[in-house]
Every structure is written in structure tokens, then in C-alpha cells.
């Protein structure tokens, strides 16, 4: 019996890895559906209108937040991975880059909130 290999994964680097993988899988499942809905504009516009009305429901809007979240974490996960493997940065440089990303994200959010 191997008791063993669960807790050995609970660290930030592995969690970042699995978040990137899972968000990618989620997006891969979503994309065909997304293109199919877009294709309805050409093939069956009445059905598309029906879907757009359905998309106005609160629960569906909430699910769209999930999609935006998946897109965001997958994009940042990909940028992180490329930086990790292609830029031989020192730990202080990595901290600086992460800090700069966090600050720019904060400023962007503030602007967005003002715009809303």
C-alpha cells in the first residue's frame, strides 16, 4: 500500500501547474461550443436569438464570470510558464516581476471600477 503521494503536491509551484492544466482543459471543452454558437449567426439566427435571451439569465451571466476567470488564469499561467522556462531570472528578479504584475493589475482594476 502506498499511503503517500497526496500531500507531497500541496505547494505553490504544483498548484500553479494544475491550475494552468485544468483551466486549459476547461477552455478546450468550451471552445467548440463557443464556435458552434457563433456559427448559428449564419445557419439559424432564430436559434441564436433564443440562446442570447437565455444568456441574459443571472445564473448564465455568473457562469460567464467563470469563463473569464479560466481565460485569465490560463493566460497568466502561460506567461508564467514561458518566463519560467525561457528567462533565466534570479529570485529577486522574479519577485520584482510578480510585484510589477500585481501593481499593474491593481491599477487596471481601479480604472475599471471607475469606468463602471
Amino acid at each position: 500500500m502506498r499511503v503517500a503521494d497526496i500531500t507531497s503536491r500541496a505547494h505553490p509551484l504544483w498548484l500553479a501547474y494544475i491550475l494552468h492544466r485544468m483551466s486549459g482543459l476547461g477552455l478546450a471543452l468550451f471552445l467548440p461550443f463557443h464556435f458552434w454558437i457563433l456559427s448559428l449567426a449564419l445557419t439559424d439566427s432564430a436559434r441564436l436569438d433564443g440562446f442570447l435571451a437565455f444568456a441574459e439569465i443571472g445564473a448564465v451571466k455568473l457562469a460567464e464570470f467563470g469563463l473569464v476567470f479560466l481565460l485569465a488564469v490560463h493566460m497568466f499561467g502561460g506567461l508564467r510558464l514561458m518566463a519560467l522556462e525561457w528567462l533565466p531570472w534570479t529570485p529577486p528578479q522574479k519577485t520584482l516581476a510578480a510585484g510589477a504584475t500585481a501593481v499593474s493589475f491593481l491599477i487596471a482594476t481601479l480604472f475599471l471600477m471607475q469606468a463602471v
Partner: protein
Amino acid sequence: MATKTLKVSIDRGASDPDIFDVPAHDNQTVLDVVSWVQQNTDPTLSYRFACRVGMCGSCAMMVNGVPRWTCRTHVSKVVRDGAVSIAPLRNLPVVKDLVVDMDPFFDKWVGAEGVHHGTLTRDDPIATVDETSPARVEANAGIECINCSVCYAACDTVAGNPDYLGPAALQRAWTLLNDAKDEGRLAILDAISGTGGCHNCHSMGSCTTYCPNELDPMSAIAGLKRETAKSFFRRGR
């Protein structure tokens, strides 16, 4: 101090682990606990150790699901509700109890060209090494590996792909690639860019997280990925 006991469960390959009550002390390593069991309760318990000071790399085991060098792991750091679970290292065949067969680990070390590729003879003058050159700094970062196989046990890619060379062997290849005395660049690049090579690594980082000597095999493998890519675009140089 009142006599306290630890509940130590040791995975010996049966469906349930063996449970032992071991006297607890203020200063006690996981290796001390295993040795106590073998010396006082069950002399048939097999395990491996040599130096007891974190240099030889022979006593690594899974402790509460985490690969660790047991001689430098204090029980107080890992104990949970008075209990510790100990199992043989993951990703290697078990010989008996806590002893694993290290052959696959060392075979991959050689498979990654983790051997010296010298060109000089004893009659040549000793090659000078510039300790401050970027390549030497890069090589120095990885040379304190004690071959304990903790990174190999921590790696999920090793678990999923038996051909994968693993973090320790690839880190060794990276140190040799940056070593001014080593002339095996082409052989190393060839060995580590193949089927089980560096491009299997998913940068999960368990190797770097759990390396007891605080080395960074994940970054070393990233270095190999860059070198193989550069070599590809320069057509094999």
C-alpha cells in the same frame, strides 16, 4: 518529561501498515525512530542508512506522504497528533520494507550522460577554472546533489513516464554542460533531448520544493530546454 510515545506506521508492502509505539524524545529524527523499531521491536525491519549527517543520500523515505532525508528530519517537524507514517520512496521498486532498488535512478544518471567527458591526459597542465564565470556559477548551483532520490520520488512526471530521466540526472547533465572541464556537450544534448529527456518536464516544481539540499533541478531542466532549443536553431551546435 513524562514518557510519551509516538504512533509510527510503517508501510511494508502489506495491505495495512505495521503500527509501532516508539518512545518520544525532544531531539529525535525519523531515522532514529526507524532504528529504534529495528533494534527494539522488530529486527526484521529493513531500511538503509550510512552517514546519519545528510551527506551520503541513502536514508530517504516517504514521511507523511513527503519524500525526505530521514537522518536530518526531526520528528517534531513532521509529527501529527503524535503519529508519523513512513513508507519506502515513491517511483522506485521496493526491495523489502523501506529499502528501494536505486538502479533505475542511477541508470538514468548515466543515461543522461552524467559522466565526465574529459579530453586531457595526466600529462597536460591542470585546466584553469574561472570561479566567477556565469557558466561556473550555473554549474556550482547544482553540484551539491547527494543522489538521495528525493526529487525523483517527488516528481509526478517520473510517476507517469517510466522513461523520463528525472530531475537529478537532468540537473547533473546541466552542471556538466556548464563545466569548463567537460567536453561532452554534443553527447549530453543528444541524451537529454530524446524520448525521456528534459522536454518531458512539466515544471511542477516538486523536485525544487523537496530537495533537502535546497538545489533547484526545475531551473536546471529549464536551462537544458533553452540549450536544446538553441542547439536546434543552430542546427546541432
